[in-house]
């Protein structure tokens, strides 16, 4: 187990280094350098060294430190991803377990395809339309609303303003969660141990509880990176549709205004989040799988 965790940590560190190198190459565009591959690689090296020293350069838009700018907007995105992740687990896990059952899985397959075909921005706009027309909420998808509503709050008005972006991110995450669960259930359904355990006298419930459930949960954990990618993508769209200032929204503005230091840093942070989720998920899955091993 320790060997596995060390190997995965090494993979993660290598991935982070690669992501830092890619971000440094993007950031190097902002540095003045002569044309040609040599000077560009030199500039990228300078930026990579800066990254390793936690100097991420300055934002071309505000003139402030890129790290400081991101520190201001990242908590908004992380709160959105966290709240969306909770919704994703609350909706996706029961859905995945329900739809993972044999006959229901077959019947639900076309329905799942239809739901999965909806791009996140269409889902967000549909939610906004439903809230505005059905619940008469003050929804704005075309202009910023007054003030910034925090994600975690007990104020009903602020909750209404944050519910739609959280739901949008949550539903996108739920799609990824239920897919991971159904995939794990499908793989587990093909395992040969089932018939052997039945012959040994175990009931179907015992097999499900002691052998299949850990496999399925392990499958979900192993898909943590995929779920994180879905949540981050959805956060970008939700911040844009519902005018919430966050890191994802900042990324779009940075690329539009060619603020490469900022864009590179955000890209690196998102890649790092995915790598760390992958590491935690894989180690968790392995720990679960090796729990009963002698």
């Amino acid at each position: 187990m320790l060997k596995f965790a060390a190997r995965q940590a090494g993979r993660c560190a290598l991935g982070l280094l690669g992501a830092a190198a890619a971000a440094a190459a993007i950031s190097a565009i902002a540095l003045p350098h002569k044309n040609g591959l040599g000077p560009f690689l030199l500039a990228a090296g300078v930026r990579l060294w800066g990254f390793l020293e936690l100097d991420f350069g300055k934002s071309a838009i505000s003139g402030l430190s890129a790290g400081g700018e991101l520190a201001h907007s990242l908590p908004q995105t992380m709160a959105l991803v966290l709240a969306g992740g909770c919704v994703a687990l609350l909706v996706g896990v029961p859905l995945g377990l329900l739809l993972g059952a044999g006959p229901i899985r077959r019947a639900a397959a076309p329905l799942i395809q239809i739901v999965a075909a909806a791009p996140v921005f269409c889902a967000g706009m549909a939610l906004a339309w439903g809230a505005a027309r059905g619940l008469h909420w003050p929804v704005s998808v075309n202009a910023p609303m007054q003030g910034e509503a925090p994600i975690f709050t007990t104020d009903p008005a602020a909750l209404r303003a944050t519910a739609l972006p959280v739901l949008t991110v949550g539903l996108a995450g739920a799609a990824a969660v239920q897919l991971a669960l159904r995939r794990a259930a499908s793989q587990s359904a093909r395992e040969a141990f089932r018939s052997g355990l039945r012959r040994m006298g175990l009931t179907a419930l015992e097999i499900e509880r002691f052998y299949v459930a850990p496999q399925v949960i392990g499958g979900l954990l192993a898909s943590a990176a995929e779920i994180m990618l879905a949540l981050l993508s959805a956060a970008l769209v939700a911040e844009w549709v519902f005018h919430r200032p966050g890191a994802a929204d900042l990324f779009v503005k940075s690329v539009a205004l060619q603020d490469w230091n900022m864009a590179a840093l955000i890209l690196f942070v998102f890649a790092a989040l995915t790598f760390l989720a992958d590491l935690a998920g894989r180690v968790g899955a392995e720990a679960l799988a090796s729990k009963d091993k002698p």
Partner: protein
Amino acid sequence: MSAPGEAPLLRAALRLLGWCGLGLIAVAVALGDFLARAPAGAAFVGPMLSAPSAEFPFGTDLLGRDLFSETLHGLSVSVSHALLGTLLAIALGGFFGAVAARLPRPAGLTLRGVFAIFASVPALLLAILVIGLSARFYAPLAAGFAAAPLAFVRAFDRVDVNSAHAEYARATGISWTTLLRRDLTYEFRDTLGTVAARALAAVTIILSTVSFLGFGATPPARDLGLMIAAAKASYLHAWWTAAFPALALLVLILCARLAAGLDESERP
């Protein structure tokens, strides 16, 4: 969770349905200019924000454009752009991944590592970045590039370099290029349709989203994502301005997904 269950008949039927749907979309795109009653972007063809009626089946938008014609034109732009991106995603992802897996192991694993770094960034962000670094004109290629890393990793991991026939080929002195050519021929003969449909679905989602965010198609050539973005100003009280382009987009992605035959044991 328990019962193993494949439904080959249902899956085959759904795949057929997906391919038929894609065929119908291809016909609609080919006959788009003939079926549409107004040229692309023609304003004040009818009254502003007119609800769906016999005269305007999909209604009209804020500028009095016939939404039926606009949706057909938008579908045509979306499909043509998505096909371009799909070609790049197949070449750079599926094909290159299958080739890289058969390169000498250190070179193959290095390439896989590089693509895994790109795959760790949401494809949408990658597409936006590539468009920002180049130009909106290259949005279809950017979408294809963004969809490629996951396809590369998937194709790479699917290859079993220690398969029995590979061992036999090595033992009998068959060159690795011959083996590669043979493997790719068989692999792509069997899976090209699935790979292409899967890439089409992924590229269409990325492309429509970047257009929605303002990084994709440029007016007057509006694709479905840009049409939906433009409808943001009016759709809360005139639902049809966003609903029909969104429905067309949904049908396109759904048909591609059905044609790919995605099931729960596969990564999307």
